[in-house]
Structures are given as structure tokens and as C-alpha cells.
């Protein structure tokens, strides 16, 4: 496999994880534009552990993701007080806060960046992708998944059928932050070098974009969106300077012609019935 192709595939895997981290939080109708912040925490914590403390890669990824998850839970609590566009602004602010923190935090290199993490391979990245997809598949079919659907559909009614809406909303922040933390850790150990600017606002925005374009109704939408829109910029290379303009044009026309995204629950259900039943998202 050429180095170029491997690089594209690796970033695609990390993009899938980032898209799923946004999707996790979106399951309760909360939009986070700060997931690059969680990614940065995962990247820096894991790198510090492997490079400076000599911790093996796998436990370092887990610890880093947990650290990110705890920050996610802490963010989730105040985030409950703000809804809609205000939540978007709050999470955006959080992402930038984390980025500037690492820009100035000397122990992890500050503005010079952090050199040295290594060891993430393509199989490792896709192992995490598969495990995460599998967990989402289980979640969708579980009682917990149904509770999350209820909270997304109507949080007030969800509370009157006995669901602890607050806990569920905070919980998915923790889950989303965990996944983004894993993505960050894998990114750092694949790239050998990280700097705070790797985790800027654009990374958060792209992750949200993957989900919107792929379809917000099912986690398969996030996966498909991340795959297609990771490959598209590469496939458009022949356009040279016009590449990003065309990319933008594709985004705009997607929103016009298929606003609900590439995959909806219905398409997934139909596909599922046509093939193995593995893709099925309904439980009844």
C-alpha cells in the first residue's frame, strides 16, 4: 500500500471516530461544535503518557480517552442550561479554550508542539473504528438507545415516562468525549507530532459536517458521511486549485437535494431488509 493511500485511510478512520463522537452527543438533540477540544485532550494526554512516562500505547489511549470523557461530563453539566444555538456557541468556546491551553502549556511543548508519539497503525485505527461501530449498533438496539430516542424526541415527555433526562444528556457528552479522545490519541500516534493547531475549530466543524451530510437519524449516516467526505477532497485533486470550491459546491447541493443526509432510518431499514438484517436499527 502506498504511503499516500495509507495516510488517506488513516485520516478517514479518525474522521469516522470524530463523526461518531458528534453523533453520540446529537442522539439527545445536543449539537457540539467543540469536539476538537476533546480530541486534543486525548492526543496530548496519551502522548505525554507514552513519550514522557513510557506507558504502553493501548493503556495510554484508554487513560487519555477517560480523561477526555471526564472533561466531557463536566462540560455536559453546564451545557444542560444552554440549548440550541447557545449550546453550539458554548461548545465552540470550549474547543478554542482547550486549543489555546495546549498552545501555552509548556510541559507538552506549548507553541512548539509535541514530538515523539508513535505506534498507531492502520489496523489499530480500524480496530477502534470497528469496536466503536459495534457498540453503536448494540446501543441502537438496546433499552438505553430507546431512552435516548425519547429524550431527543421530547425531553419533557421523556421525563414523565420516568427517564432521567439530565443523566442521559450528560452521559452522552461523556461518551462523545471518550470517542473523540480515542480519535485524538490515535491521530497523535499516527502523525508522530502534534501541535495545538491540529485541533482547531475547523476540525470540530468538519466532524459536525460529516454527520449532517451523512444523515443524523442513524449512526451509519455519520460513518458514511465521514467516509465519503474524507475521500472526496482526494478524489477531486485533478481539479487542482478549484478543488475546494467544488467540494463546497457539493456540500451546498447536498443540502438542497438531500437535506436529511445520505442515509436516513428508512434507507437503512430498507437496506437491512434487503440484505442480512445486520443494518437493522428498529427493534420491533
Amino acid at each position, binding site marked *: 500500500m502506498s504511503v499516500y493511500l495509507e495516510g488517506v485511510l488513516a485520516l478517514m478512520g479518525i474522521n469516522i471516530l470524530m463523526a461518531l463522537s458528534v453523533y453520540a452527543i446529537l442522539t439527545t438533540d445536543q449539537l457540539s461544535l467543540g469536539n476538537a477540544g476533546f480530541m486534543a485532550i486525548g492526543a496530548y494526554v496519551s502522548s505525554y503518557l507514552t513519550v514522557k512516562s513510557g506507558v504502553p500505547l493501548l493503556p495510554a489511549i484508554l487513560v487519555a480517552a477517560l480523561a477526555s470523557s471526564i472533561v466531557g461530563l463536566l462540560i455536559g453539566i453546564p451545557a444542560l442550561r444552554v440549548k440550541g444555538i447557545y449550546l453550539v456557541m458554548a461548545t465552540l468556546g470550549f474547543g478554542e479554550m482547550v486549543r489555546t491551553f495546549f498552545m501555552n502549556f509548556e510541559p507538552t511543548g506549548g507553541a512548539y508542539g509535541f514530538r515523539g508519539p508513535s505506534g498507531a497503525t492502520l489496523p489499530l485505527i480500524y480496530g477502534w473504528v470497528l469496536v466503536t461501530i459495534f457498540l453503536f449498533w448494540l446501543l441502537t438496539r438496546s*433499552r*438505553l438507545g*430507546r431512552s435516548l430516542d*425519547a429524550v431527543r424526541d421530547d425531553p419533557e415527555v421523556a*421525563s*414523565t*415516562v*420516568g427517564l*432521567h433526562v439530565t443523566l442521559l444528556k450528560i452521559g452522552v457528552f461523556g461518551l462523545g468525549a471518550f470517542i473523540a479522545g480515542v480519535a485524538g490519541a490515535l491521530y497523535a500516534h499516527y502523525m508522530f507530532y502534534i501541535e495545538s493547531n491540529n485541533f482547531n475549530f475547523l476540525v470540530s466543524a468538519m466532524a459536525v459536517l460529516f454527520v449532517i451530510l451523512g444523515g443524523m437519524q442513524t449512526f451509519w449516516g455519520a460513518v458514511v458521511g465521514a467516509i465519503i467526505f474524507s475521500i472526496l477532497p482526494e478524489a477531486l485533486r485533478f481539479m487542482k486549485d478549484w478543488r475546494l470550491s467544488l467540494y463546497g459546491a457539493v456540500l451546498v447541493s447536498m443540502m438542497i437535494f438531500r437535506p436529511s443526509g445520505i442515509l436516513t432510518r428508512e434507507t437503512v431499514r430498507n437496506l437491512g431488509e434487503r440484505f442480512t438484517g445486520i443494518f437493522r436499527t428498529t427493534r420491533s
Partner: protein
Amino acid sequence: MLEVIEVSKNFGGLQALDCVKLHLEENRIYGLIGPNGAGKTTLFNLITGLLPVSGGSIQFQGQELTSLHPHQITRLGIARTFQNIRLFPTMTVLENVLVAQNIHTRSGITSIFEFKAQGDKRLRGEAETLLQQMGLWQKRKEIGSSLAYGEQRRLEIARALALEPSLLLLDEPAAGMNEAETEELLDRIQEIRNAGKTIFLIEHDMSVVMGICHYIYVLNFGKLIAQGTPEKIQANEAVIEAYLGREEA
């Protein structure tokens, strides 16, 4: 079982409820009537914890409710339906009922690893019984909010019953139903009561209220203006005035 003690509710300067006192006993059907804007739904929202009270106390089986969250109140055994039907719009008929059963079983993170859980089969059976009772089993795979109006009301009741409440609050259960559907609904409500539950219902249709309620409370402008058996309420001057207005001499 339910004591509403001098409960008041203000929205800004508007006094929606003023020192309301109610007393509900077990295994009976209670009615709550009054003109539009009398504060009936507001009272339901206070009992279920969707709104905080401004003053007073609400006790259910001896437990104070006013400091509890809605999900805690539901878990104590109070379920409700809504005046403007509120089903979960993306869920099928069956899913609307199944989600309400989550309070009876472990539905946390561990639930994603249970493929064929022990309790699941029993709960599915109960969901089936409920939907059969409400005449919705054949439609279990349809999206709940795509059903006909009367069916949606019945589904909301099924969802509330799936919580296995001891007190069921029904907010205008017969609204929008034709006569035949209303008759059916009354039979269902009687059955639910015969199963040992207490029912507290808001209704505009007087034939419903007078036909099945054991005891009726009347609200007007946030104040309790009358209470008593259907016969007494029908003869009550204040009630007639509230509904028809005073005749100018």
C-alpha cells in the same frame, strides 16, 4: 392517596392557581372541570413536576412531591397523558410503549450487552396485552404519530399504563373523539379503575364526566369553586354560573 394542600401557582403577575385543595382516595375516578383557562392543565403539570409550585404542598401516599423531579414522581406511581397528544414522533406504536417500560428494568449502559434479557420477554408480553386492550396491536409497527386521532389518544393511555401507575392523570382523554370512540374509552377507563387504579381526569365533555366520575372538582380562574358528586355539581349555582354566566336581572 393524593393530597393537594393550598397549592398556588403564579406566572408573573397572573395567578393561575390560588390555594387549591384536593383530596383523592384510592381506586376511584375523579373529574376536574372548569372553563378554558381555569388552571386545570396547570394543576396536572404541578402534580407531575413539570412546573414548580409557587406555594403549598402536594403529597402522594405521604410523600412530598413538590421538591421532586418529574422522573422521580413518575417512579412513585403517577402517570399522565397530555391534552395536545405528545407521542414520541420517531417511534413506532410498540416502541412508544416499550420505552415507558424502561423504568421497570435495568436500562442503563449494561442494557446494551443484553441480547435476550430475562425481564424483556415478560415486559414484551405486557406491552402486547396493553396494546391488545387498546385495540392497537395490529398497528404496532406503524409510527405512533401517524395513527388516527382517537388511536393516538389510546396509545398515550397505553404508554401511561405501561408505567404501571397507581394514579393515572388523563388530560381531556375524549377530546376529538366521536360518540362511539368515547363510549369505548369510557369502558376502558372503567376497566383501568377496576384493575385497582385511581383516575383523575380533565374533561370538557359533560356526559363523560357525569357518567363515570365518583367525585368532581370545579376550577374557575384558578380557584376551586365547587366539589362533590356529579348530582351535586349539576345542581350547583356557582358551577352553572361559571359555565353559563350570570343572568342580568
